C-alpha cells in the first residue's frame, strides 16, 4: 500500500531499476574484460624471452602455490597458475588442456599423479623436453622420450584405525584386504578416478587379468565400501566407520598431523611392491612461452623443490638422492616400489575401468 504514497519520481526510478541494473551490469562486465584481461598468451611472439609463464597445476594448491611464489621471487618471472585437485571428478585440468589443444594457453602442466600426464601424452598435448635437472632422478621415473619427468612421489598405503586394529594385526599386503577377517571393514576410493585408478591399472598390468579380476571379486564379496575419494577413505578410517582403507601417503599424513588415531602400512614389501606415484611435469606442445616454460620446469625438477615438497604437509618422497625425506614417511630406499612401466599401466586404464564396473557393481 505504501507504494502509492511514494513521490512520482521515486516510482519512476523504481520502474527503471531493472534497466539501470542491466546497464550497470554491462558496464561492469566490459570493465572486467579490459582490467582483468590476462596478457593473452598468444599476443607475444614465441621464442621471445618472456616475463611470464602459465602453468596448470593439479598438485594441491596449498602445496604448489608457495613453490610457484618462490620461483617468482627468485626469477622475477610472473607465474600465472590454474589450480585443480586430484579429487576432481567433474572436470579437471586434463580436460581443459585437451579442449584447448588447438590453441594452448598453458606452457607447463604439473600433475600430482601419472595418469593424466600419460593420457595427455597419448593425445598429443605434450612436447618433449629433457631438462638438465632431470639428471639424478632414477630412470624408472623418467619418460624415455622426455614427454614427462617425475619428481617428488607419493605412495599408495593401507591406512588403519589404531583404536580398532593393533599394529601387529594390521595387514601387510593388499591381498589381505580380501580376507573374510576384514569383511565390511575396508574402504577404497572409486577405482575409476585419481590415484586409485592408477593403482588398479598397475595391478592388472602386474598380475594379469585373471588374477586381478579374481582379487577384486573377492574384495567385493568381502563387502568393500567404495567411496568418492581418498580423503573420504581416510576420514572413514579416522572416525572408525571402517577399520582399514586403501589411500595415499599425503592423505594419511593429514590425519597424522590432526592427531587422529590413524597409522599406515606400505604393503607388499615382500611381494609385488607398492605403486609409487611421482609428480610429473611436462611441456605443452605449441606453448605460448616455451622458453619461460623450460626454465620453470628446470626449477621444479631441482632438489630445492623436492626438499620443499618433502618438508611441507604434502610429505612427498624425494627422488633425487641426498634430499632429506619427510618425517612421517620412510625413505624411497626402504620401501619396495612396484616395478612399473608407466605407459603400459596407462594403456590399461580405460579397459580396466570398464572391466571393474560389473565386478565391483559400480
Amino acid at each position: 500500500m505504501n507504494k502509492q504514497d511514494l513521490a512520482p519520481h521515486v516510482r519512476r526510478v523504481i520502474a527503471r531499476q531493472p534497466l539501470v541494473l542491466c546497464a550497470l551490469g554491462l558496464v561492469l562486465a566490459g570493465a572486467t574484460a579490459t582490467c582483468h584481461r590476462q596478457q593473452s598468451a598468444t599476443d607475444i611472439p614465441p621464442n621471445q624471452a618472456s616475463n611470464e609463464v602459465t602453468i596448470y597445476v593439479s598438485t594441491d594448491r596449498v602445496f604448489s602455490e608457495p613453490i610457484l611464489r618462490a620461483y617468482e621471487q627468485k626469477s622475477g618471472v610472473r607465474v600465472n597458475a590454474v589450480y585443480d585437485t586430484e579429487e576432481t571428478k567433474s572436470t579437471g585440468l586434463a580436460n581443459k588442456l585437451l579442449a584447448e589443444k588447438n590453441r594452448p594457453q598453458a606452457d607447463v602442466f604439473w600433475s600430482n599423479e601419472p595418469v593424466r600426464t600419460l593420457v595427455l601424452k597419448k593425445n598429443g598435448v605434450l612436447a618433449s623436453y629433457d631438462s638438465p635437472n632431470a639428471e639424478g632422478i632414477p630412470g624408472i621415473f623418467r619418460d624415455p622420450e622426455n614427454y614427462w619427468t617425475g619428481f617428488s612421489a607419493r605412495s599408495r598405503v593401507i591406512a588403519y584405525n589404531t583404536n580398532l586394529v593393533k599394529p601387529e594385526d594390521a595387514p601387510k599386503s593388499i591381498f589381505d584386504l580380501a580376507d573374510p577377517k576384514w569383511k565390511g571393514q575396508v574402504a577404497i576410493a572409486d577405482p575409476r578416478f585419481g590415484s586409485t585408478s592408477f593403482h588398479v591399472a598397475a595391478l592388472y598390468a602386474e598380475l594379469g587379468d585373471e588374477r586381478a579380476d579374481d582379487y577384486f571379486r573377492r574384495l567385493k564379496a568381502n563387502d568393500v565400501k567404495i567411496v568418492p575419494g581418498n580423503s573420504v577413505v581416510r576420514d572413514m578410517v579416522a572416525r572408525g566407520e571402517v577399520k582399514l582403507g586403501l589411500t595415499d601417503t599425503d592423505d594419511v599424513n593429514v590425519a597424522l598431523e590432526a592427531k587422529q588415531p590413524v597409522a599406515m602400512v606400505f604393503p607388499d614389501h615382500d611381494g609385488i611392491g607398492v605403486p609409487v606415484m611421482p609428480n610429473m611435469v611436462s611441456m605443452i606442445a605449441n606453448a605460448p612461452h616455451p622458453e619461460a616454460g623450460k626454465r620453470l620446469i628446470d626449477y621444479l625438477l631441482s632438489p630445492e623443490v623436492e626438499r620443499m615438497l618433502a618438508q611441507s604437509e604434502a610429505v612427498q618422497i624425494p627422488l633425487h638422492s641426498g634430499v632429506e625425506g619427510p618425517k612421517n614417511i620412510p625413505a624411497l630406499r626402504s620401501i619396495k616400489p612396484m616395478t612399473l612401466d608407466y605407459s603400459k599401466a596407462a594403456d590399461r586404464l580405460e579397459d580396466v575401468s570398464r572391466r571393474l564396473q560389473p565386478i565391483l557393481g559400480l
Partner: protein
Amino acid sequence: MLDLVASNTTVKGITLRLPPVLPSARAITLGVAVTLFLLLCVLPIIYMLGVSFVGRDGSFSVGNYRQLLIDARQRELLLTSTLLGAGTALLATIIGAPLGVLLARTRLPLKRMLRIALVIPLVVPPYVSALAWILMTGSTGFIARWFGSDLLSAWTYSLTGAILVLGTSFFPLSMLATEAAARRVNGRLEEAGLLIASPGRVLWRITLPLIAPTVAAAALIIFVLALAEFGVPGLLRVRVFTTEVFTAFSALYDFGAATALAVPLLAVALIVSIIAKLIIGERLLVARRNLHPGLVLRLGRWRAVVIGFLAIILAASVVLPLSTLAIEAGQLERIIFALGTSGDAIFNSLYLSTIGATLTCALAVLLGYGRARSGARLRGLVDLLLIVIFAVPSTVVGVGLIGLWNRPGLVGAIYTSQTIIVVGYLARFVPVAALMLAASVRQIPVSVEEAAEVAGASWWRTLTRIVLPQMRTGLAAAWVVSFIFCFGELGATLLVAPPGESTLPVRVYTIIANTPPAEVAALALLQVGIILIPLALLGFFSHGERGAR
C-alpha cells in the same frame, strides 16, 4: 484469444507509427535476446553434440550412441537417477510450496528473517549438507554415539537418505517460486470467492490452481538439479547415471562419449517435463495489478501446527547441519584464518555473481516475456527446450565453451579474461531464470500493454514502466536464485576460469582434498556466511513487501 488480440494490436501500432519496412523496437529487442540466448546457451551444446558424432578417425560416426543403454547396469542407474530426481522434487515441493503460501498469505512474526533463514539450505553446497548428515547419522555420527548403537546409518547410506538430503537442500526454490506466484494472484478473485466460501475452500479452488503452473515449474527445476547431482549420491554410496557422464570425462577423457552419455539424462528430463505439462497444463487466469489484499489466511487454532512445522523444517535443514559443521569446525580461529586467506576469491565471487545474476535476469526477462507472449504451441516447445538445456551437465557446457571461445581475436580476449566465467554463468542459468520469469509475465494481462499502446506509449516504455514493475517480486526471486546458483557454480567455472585467483567455490574445492574435515567444515560455513550477507541486505532493504500482507 488474448494473445491473438495482442499481436493484432501491435501490428496496427507499427503501421501507425513507423514505416512498415523497419522492425519494431519489440521485435529488435526480442530478436537480440533470442540471438544472445542461442549464442550463449544453445551453441556450446550443439558444438558438443557435433563432437559426439565424430568418430576416432575424424569422420561422421554414431559409435558413441550405439552402446547407449544396452546393458542392464546403465538402465538400472538411469532408473535410480530418475527416482532420485522425482523423490527430491516431490519432497522439496511438499515442504516448499506450503511455506511459500504461508509467507505470502499469513501474518507470521519476523517474516523477513524467517524467509532468509529458510533460504539458507539452498546456499549450503549439497555435498556439504551430506557431509553434515554423515557426521550426525552415519555409523559413527553423533546420534550413534549418543545412543550407543548404530541406528540410522543404513538409512543414511541409501537412496532415501540422498532424497532427504537433496530435498531439504532444494525446497527453498519451491518456496520462493510459490511465494512470488501467490503474491501475484489477483486479490479480487479471492475476495469474490470469500463472499460465498470459506478461506480454505478459496485457497484450494482459486489460489492454488492459479499458482500450480509455477509450483510445477519449480518442481521440474528441482528434479533436474537432483538428476544432475553426483556429489551427494557418491558420498551416500548411491550409484547414479550422472557418474557415468563424469567417468567418461575424467577417467576416459572422451568428450564425444561423455556428451552421448548425457543424452539419456536429457531424455529423462524431457519426458518428465512433458508429463508434468500434460498433468498441470496452463490453467492460468489473467491477474490484474494486485491492489487487493485478497485472501489472508488466519491461522487461528492452526497456529501451533504451523509454528511446529516451521520449527521442524528449520531444525532439520538449517540448525542441525550448520551446528554440526560448527562443532566440527571447532574454533572460531579456523574460520577467521580461512577468511583471511580467501579475500580475493570472495571478492571475485561476489562481483562476478552479481554481474552474472543481473545479466542472467536481464536476458531471461526478455526471453520469458517473449515466451509468455508467443503462441501456445511455441510456448510449450520453448519450455521443453529451456528445461532440457538446463539439464545439460556443467562439464559438457564447460568443454563446449572452451571449444567455442578459445580462438584468436576479441573472442579469445574474452576467453582469457574473467568475463568467460560470467559467460559460463549465463550459459548455465539463463534457461532456468527464463522459466521462472515466464511464469511471472504470464500473470500480467496483455490488456494493460494494449492500453498503453493505445495511449501512445512505445513498447520499450510499456515494458519498463508497466510490465517490469508488476513482476517485481518474481524478478527479485529470480535474481536471488540466479545469484545463489552463480555463486555456487563449480563445474563450468573450473574448466573455463583463466589463470589467477578464481571464485570462492573453486578455491574451497581445490583446497578441500588435503584438508582435515574440521577445516572443510570451516570453509563451508564461511561460504554460507559470505553468500548470506548480500541476501540478507537485499531482504531487509527491499520494498518487496506490501503493508497489507
